């Protein structure tokens, strides 16, 4: 995984609560057997009409947000299915940061495995981001979001921060505990 860098971008405001993973990546696109190529299907039913033409009123189709790397949204983002395809689609489309008041647990966890930073911010701070119309800067090292005239700080679990900043691979870390795993298997009832 690539180490996480400072991100400067305009934030795409997706003003909806409870955005579920079926909306992020509809099921007809879950049949690929690789991790790439999902970006074109991101929010498919919201982005495109049935004949495949982009829906003008959907925020991602506004040219202003074409190169946006930051998605700004509301409570319980990523609820529903555990499909990691949702995270792959966001990443493949170009989003590396998602900011919301809260996330569904599995989605939140999946983000870190793929180098996406999900930031939990309280509603008041989120409001000022929704009002910001220019580029913002996300700095994970300092745990700050810099908008014109304001620096907003955010919390993140220290080990998760480390994973992203160093681009660590969970499996290699775990394999260092091989002796503990073997010891556990010997000492416990393993059904």
């Amino acid at each position, binding site marked *: 995984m690539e180490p996480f860098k400072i991100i400067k971008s305009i934030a795409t405001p997706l003003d909806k609560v409870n955005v579920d993973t079926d909306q992020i990546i509809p099921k007809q696109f879950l049949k690929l*057997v690789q991790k790439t190529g999902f970006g074109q299907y991101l929010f498919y*039913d919201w982005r495109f009409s049935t004949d495949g033409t982009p829906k003008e009123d959907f925020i991602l189709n506004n040219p202003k947000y074409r190169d946006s790397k930051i998605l700004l949204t509301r409570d319980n983002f990523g609820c529903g299915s555990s499909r990691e395809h949702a995270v792959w689609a966001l990443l493949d489309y170009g989003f590396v940061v998602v900011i919301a008041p809260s996330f*569904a647990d599995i989605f939140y966890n999946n983000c870190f495995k793929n180098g996406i930073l999900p930031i939990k911010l309280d509603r008041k701070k989120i409001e000022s981001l929704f009002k910001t119309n220019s580029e913002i800067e996300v700095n994970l090292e300092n745990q700050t979001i810099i908008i014109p005239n304001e620096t907003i700080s955010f919390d993140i679990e220290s080990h998760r921060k480390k994973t992203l900043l160093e681009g660590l691979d969970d499996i290699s870390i775990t394999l260092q505990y091989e002796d503990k795993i073997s010891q556990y298997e010997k000492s416990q009832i393993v059904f």
Partner: protein
Amino acid sequence: MPKTLFEKIWDSRVVVEQKNGPTLLYVDRHLVHEVTSPQAFDGLRMNKRKVRRPDLTFATMDHNVPTSDRSLPIIDEISARQIQVLEKNCKEFDIQLFDINSPNQGIVHVIGPELGITLPGTTIVCGDSHTSTHGAFGALAFGIGTSDVEHVLATQCIWMEKPKTFEIKIEGKRKNNHAVTAKDIILSIIRHIGTAGGSGTVIEYSGKTISDLTMEQRMTICNMSIEGGARAGLIAPDEKTFAYLKGRKYIPKNYDELIDYWSENLKSDPGASFDKIFTLRVDKISPQVTWGTNPAMTTDVTSTVPFPEEYAKGNQDEEKAAIKALQYMDLKPGTQITDISIDRVFIGSCTNSRLEDLIEASKIVKGKKVSPKVRAMIVPGSQLVKKQAEELGLDKIFKEANFEWRESGCSMCLGMNPDILAAGERCASTSNRNFEGRQGAGGRTHLVSPVMAAAAALAGHFVDVRELDLN
């Protein structure tokens, strides 16, 4: 210090504990299916890693398998490829696979318990959010993403932040057990706590009402814990649990000895404290019907489609969501639920596709006909459920009433196979998610119990099943 059931299972599965950071937990059972595993196996190959415990890993194909005649080839080439890839991966990594022609094939959360792979006190993971179903057996079971599937394949362990605990007590006596079902209990819970009410927690369902439920009904409850935001739901195992599993194919040889250990250890201690508590009284609950696009948008069958402001109770984001949901569902506030006409009926999914679900639905259907404007299908959860139902003659009852009697799989719960709604079609579904487009782009889903779905199929609109003779 008194401990909760969750804490006992958690503590017994700790491999590495850190002061600041997640815990490495041992995984006793890993269930694998065709949709969320290909990229995980690829990762293993790329890094020249093996599956650490193929003996604790079980695979089946359920998400995109067709439910039509199994002797015919799969028409959708991409689905066929995903199925072939799973076959190839299981062969290469020496994993037990219940393939499309196996008598044990079925929805992963139906076959786990059915085959005795699911056991009390174990940790069970699967790349599917409805893994919470297995919690009905007192197993700590939760859904994971594909990166974690790869991690578990390689290490048989998983890193996890310790969740908080949430006790949901279910008290009281339902007036009519055949009409007000486990599905209505869990929908009522989600309606009260919301779709994020259980976020960050493991739910333990307790109380007399829970002990009175059968194992299959308990599975329906635990299954939808995820719709309440919790990754896992738990019910302490008891005599019913042990009797259900006894004699099943994959239970350990020392099963009887384990029963003693489980009965003694697998319950929350008196006085154990939970981070959160909610109590539901079931005496007065009615059959539930969802009207919106998330499972908390639920109301009584006797009620009307709510006004957005009434539903949102002052929360502006929720009000906006309700307006959007009503638009999508093409419903007007104030409409009687029983006046809503339907085009399709789906009885199936890991929530409600087991033998008891089919038996209960068949009682409604027997000797009657599906409304001519409705297309109705029954998709048994597994080949075993299908076989048992056929032995009881249920297939005949359904077919004579013009229901389609199909092969097992996830089917129209998520519409990855050809079983989907057309845009604008309205469906009474026994599945677990009424999200926009879940059952087909533009399709409109109302979640209900199997008896409610069966009754709606006959009438062509929702009916209060309490008014029918169900005994």
